[in-house]
């Protein structure tokens, strides 16, 4: 099982098309690193992005330097995965 300890999901509210394309650029800047759970679609919709722990610092610096407002939707993915797995095991028992 892949481990996602420390990985976070950031929720970004892009103000305009320019900011959306900055987010799309991120996918090519960080190929196969950044995983869009909700891709950049339109300014009225949030963008949810999973960022590996090792990339968090870079990515947050990129967002902040471009004035992209974000919040942390999931602080540590692995914590939720462990809860999910425990719930499945419990249900199986």
């Amino acid at each position, binding site marked *: 099982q*892949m481990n*996602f300890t420390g990985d976070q999901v950031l929720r970004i509210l892009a103000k305009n098309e320019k900011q959306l394309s900055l987010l799309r650029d991120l996918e090519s800047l960080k*190929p196969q690193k950044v*995983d869009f759970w909700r891709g950049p679609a339109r300014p009225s919709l949030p963008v949810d992005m999973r960022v590996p722990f090792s990339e968090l610092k870079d990515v947050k610096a990129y967002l902040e330097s471009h004035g992209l407002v974000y919040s942390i*939707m999931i602080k540590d993915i692995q914590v*939720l995965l462990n809860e999910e797995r425990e*719930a*499945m095991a419990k249900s199986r028992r």
Partner: protein
Amino acid sequence: LERSAGSFSYSSYHTLEEIYSWIDSFVTENADIVSKILIGKSFENRSILVLKFSTGGSQHRAIWIDAGIHSREWITHATGIWTAKQIVSEYGKDDILTNILNAMDIFLEIVSNPDGFAFTHSMNRLWRKNKSSRPGASCIGVDLNRNWRSGFGGNGSNDNPCSETYRGPYPHSEPEVAAIADFITAHGNVKALISIHSYSQMLMYPYGHSLEPVSDQEELYDLAKSAVQALYEVHGIKYIYGSISTTLYVASGITLDWAYDNGIKYAFSFELRDTGSYGFLLPASQIIPTAQETWMAIRTIMEHALNNPY
């Protein structure tokens, strides 16, 4: 201990093996109305199964429902399982459903991407695509919702095998897509198609590959509005609705566009919960409420298809 669908927990997530075992029990226990159809084999040679709900009669008009085309969207498989149980338990009690099933068949594919789903349990919980690999391709997997022969290769899909929206080498290159397309084409009388995804709480209709409105746009808009209202009334969850390209983004090679271009007017895709805290990791405690509200929307669409033959 004899397995039974009755002891199955509908408020938990399950592995592929548990779901396939439940399907066998469920079909055995409801043989008067449900049967199991093998429509093909996945890339890694797993069975692709469809439940058929029918009260008999030949050449019934039909409704197709699929879930799990993106494997990490576990709430969709769980909703499909609950929906199956709802259909058999409500037939004969719920007049609307009874009328639908007396005149139409329902085909329900709970796990459209069995290889990807098995992989989310064994190796990578956040895997989205199928598991196909080809010589020369630097990454594994095709996005099964970009591989359809409608707008294939346009904007909103990617030709890079490492992209999460990789379209595949050619339309219907993926056995999981070809199995559905061949089954629906051979059936020839499918009048509604509902594809269940997650997450972002949307109900959408074609087109995805173009901003051009479909010719039935007005009817589909009104039907989506009614369905979303029926959903809202269950637990107060708000959905937005409209065509894929104007509500979400341009996406090409998608199931819905293929369905619509192949004569299935009532083609809808759901993006189920999450409301914004868990994403794809929606807690199991939300399975039942999500399935209950989704059912009311699905039933609204099916009832419209029943009452508006074409």
